[in-house]
């Protein structure tokens, strides 16, 4: 009944036996315990479940778990370093007050990370394009866009 899948989760190889019809979000939140990935709508409309698969931001609620075989997945749990050190983007979100209820935050941060990983010098328009699929009801997005700009500047400074 169960099908074994193997993939890289946050830098480590994982194997898990799953029912074939499951979505990636079910496997992440269920057997793998990665509850930082949030389900906001289950229809790919809100972006709360965003994860990064092979460098691309993806709605894990629309992604069949079987298709992740052999790929590399980054969830919000994979962003912080050991000993609870936050990544630059996460820290920027905290410092800019880009968080309220926090339910959209992991997805928002992963969309921002996928953008900055592929385009280290995004314009404000690029940032808004990258975050277009991530809904937030609390913040009005102002401080979120500011946080991504700040992270951009800091990451450039590091290089």
């Amino acid at each position, binding site marked *: 009944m169960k099908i074994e899948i193997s993939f890289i989760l946050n830098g480590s190889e994982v194997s898990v036996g799953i029912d074939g019809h499951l979505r990636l979000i079910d496997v992440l939140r269920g057997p793998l315990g990665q509850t930082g990935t949030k389900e906001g709508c289950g229809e790919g409309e809100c972006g709360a479940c965003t994860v990064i698969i092979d460098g691309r931001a993806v709605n894990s609620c629309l992604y069949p778990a079987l298709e992740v075989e052999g790929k590399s997945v980054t*969830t919000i749990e994979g962003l912080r370093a050991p000993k609870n050190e936050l990544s630059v983007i996460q820290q920027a979100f905290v410092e800019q007050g880009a*968080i309220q209820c*926090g339910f959209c935050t992991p997805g928002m941060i992963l969309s921002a990370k996928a953008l900055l990983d592929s385009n280290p010098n995004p314009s404000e328009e690029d940032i808004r394009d990258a975050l277009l699929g991530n809904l937030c009801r609390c913040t009005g997005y102002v401080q979120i866009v500011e946080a991504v700009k700040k992270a951009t500047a800091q990451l450039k400074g590091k290089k």
Partner: protein
Amino acid sequence: MTDFNYIGKKTSRPDGSDKVAGKAHYIHDLQRPGMLYGKIKFSDHPHARIKHIDTSKAEGLTGVRAVITATSTPEIRIGFLRDNFALKKDKVRQYRDEVAAVAAIDPEIAEEAVDLIQVEYEPLPGVFSPHEAMKEGSPLIHETDAQGRARTDNMVPLKFHHESGDLKAGKNKAKSLVEGEYSTPMVQQCCMGTAGCIAEFDMSNNLTIWAKTQIPFLAQRDFNRALSDMGLPGKNTRVIVPTLGGGFGTGLDTHAYEYIAILLAFQTGCPVKIVYTRAEEFANLSPRQSSTTKIVQGCDRNGKLTFREVEVLQDNGAYTSWGATYPSVMMMPATSLYRVSNVYFNARLVYTNNTYCQAMRGYGNPEHTWALESNMDELAQEAGIDPFEFRIINRNQPNETTPMGLKVSTCGLKECLETVAGKLGWKKKPKKGKRTGKGMASLIHVGGGGRIYRSDASGLILKLDDFGNVNVYHGGVEMGQGLHSVLTLAIAEALGVRPEKVLINPTDTGTCPWDVGTHASRGAFMACNTAILAANKLRSQIFELAEELFPKEAEKNLKKFMKKNPDYKPPDFDVSKAAKRERFELRDGFVFIKEGPQEPWLRIELGRLLRAIHFRSQGQMLTTEVFYDPPNELPDFEKGFGNISATYAYGAQGAEVEVDTETGEVKILRMVAAHDVGRVLDPQGLKGQIYGALAQGVGYALYEKLESQQGKILNPNFRDYKIPTVQEMNFPIDLEFIETDDSYGPFGAKGVAEPGLVPTAPAIANAIYDAVGVRIRDLPITPEKILAALKQLKQIK
């Protein structure tokens, strides 16, 4: 201005790091050992008799642990008029009515089982608008009231009425007069985290419920009553509030799904979790009510308002939630936004077979301010006065009492209006050929609690430990708005410790003192007032005990210091003599003597002093509890009088828009928001509150409407129900905070949670009128409505 250590300084919210790391745990993330999953069977009709429910197939499904209906469980009435039921027995009155429920070992089996439940209905004619429902001979939604008395019409038995002055005289005095009817749609709160709970009984039949609520203590009362209905009188409910994925009013009532989880948990003896899907949330969680407001206002030749007459009609839907009391808040702007005597206000609520409604941020104020501030612009035009000048002429002022009896303490409305006009370049004409325009609108809102219940209080417990930590127990709910940020700052400021030593515990009715609920923009106002009271009590206790213990600790310190610095000569200072309670100070976690020598050994770390207080014969631990009930009144809403809040928040917003006359599209070019917040407590959090509320106001103005046809929600998803994305919010927002330093406010602050969305829609509508000369009186202002109005305008011309 007072010099603060932490208040008003840039800080990061205490839950920020956990939230960005995915470590905040919402109801969706919680599990209990042996937990079952509940699922609800909703009605297939908006109005029908339930003839028979067949649950046999569902019961036979492997993995199902319980199937319940109203006939197999005790009757539990819910809602503050008790006109609703956890499960419906004889008839359904709306599509979302709960007719049966299942508990199973996983969510998929639960869903399959629900689909196997067969319900036989006898459809009844439905009514889907207040006007239809008020017609004579219209089908009755409720044949009897909660007491079993026969009902003869569909009017909700709640009265909201106000009359003051002499309306006729006011009308006679008016030189200009404008009448208008303005309407607002049902809109959804759209919390990103959907609703849900886990219910669990212990072997004594006491209940623990993890609930997405804003009213843990009123919920405890409601659930205890349900336990009594279930044959468990005297049993208790412990309500624990997990991290909330937004609230916006959805947590102001207890909900049928919570009672169903309780019934399933009791039946199965297992914890039961129910979490709504997004489609369920849209279709089955109560939205903001739709309303129609008729308003007539007049002014004299100098532009002074001479009267205001308001009639509100609200579609209540099938049952009554606290949200039905929106008119209690509408009354506030109706009687008290701008100086006006001779006021008439009346609101009627009507049962229909539409989804029943509940609270949403602003609670009637956005609806009413939409009508009032649109009408103010129309009246200004009629009178030939600039809309900004017209507002300045009629503005509220400090220390006035309004027709409703609101006692205004501080009022920064004039400054707010002037800021908006200044920043918007009010007098500047738009460039030729551009269809751009500017508009503004004002607001009044409760800023010092809002007494709609017999107690408007909030308690706080501070427990100091051996390490100088301040463990905090507060009954208010952090739902993202930043309550715990300001509470942390207030405790740090008032007590004199560093913010990182303030540790806030989860909201739990078993450990926290009572609080009426986190609504009415009262969270920060209440929590910070309790913080000041509690801190003052603790400081007195610490300083009293320090009279004996401080000198001893200082002496030990001095000895150590001398060992390290053999040449040190201590100043000639008698510590024991100086160690008097009134001379102590506590700052940044150190106790020292005011105006004493600033020697390092004369600064005792708080934790050390607390250990000295603890570890001695007949030692003590310091814990303090305070309870703060603000100086406001429970108004008589049938007469429309009473000072509902200790202080009032004011504000104004302005918009500049461009209208495409070909497509009817509105583009917001920029917005200005100026708010009288009393005092800025947490600058970053405050900005977030206003930005976020304003975005909800933009959605209300231009995009959002829960479409309902014959009681059925047609757009239960984010594809068809559009909330603003980062692209719609792509315009500059200029924020300005007016600090009026209110004497009732903690550190001078007023509540700010709701004001940010109250004037947004009329400011945008007024700007649209300025741009293209069409007045849309029905929200949301869609391109279709603009095009239709432009067409009509052309025909008239």
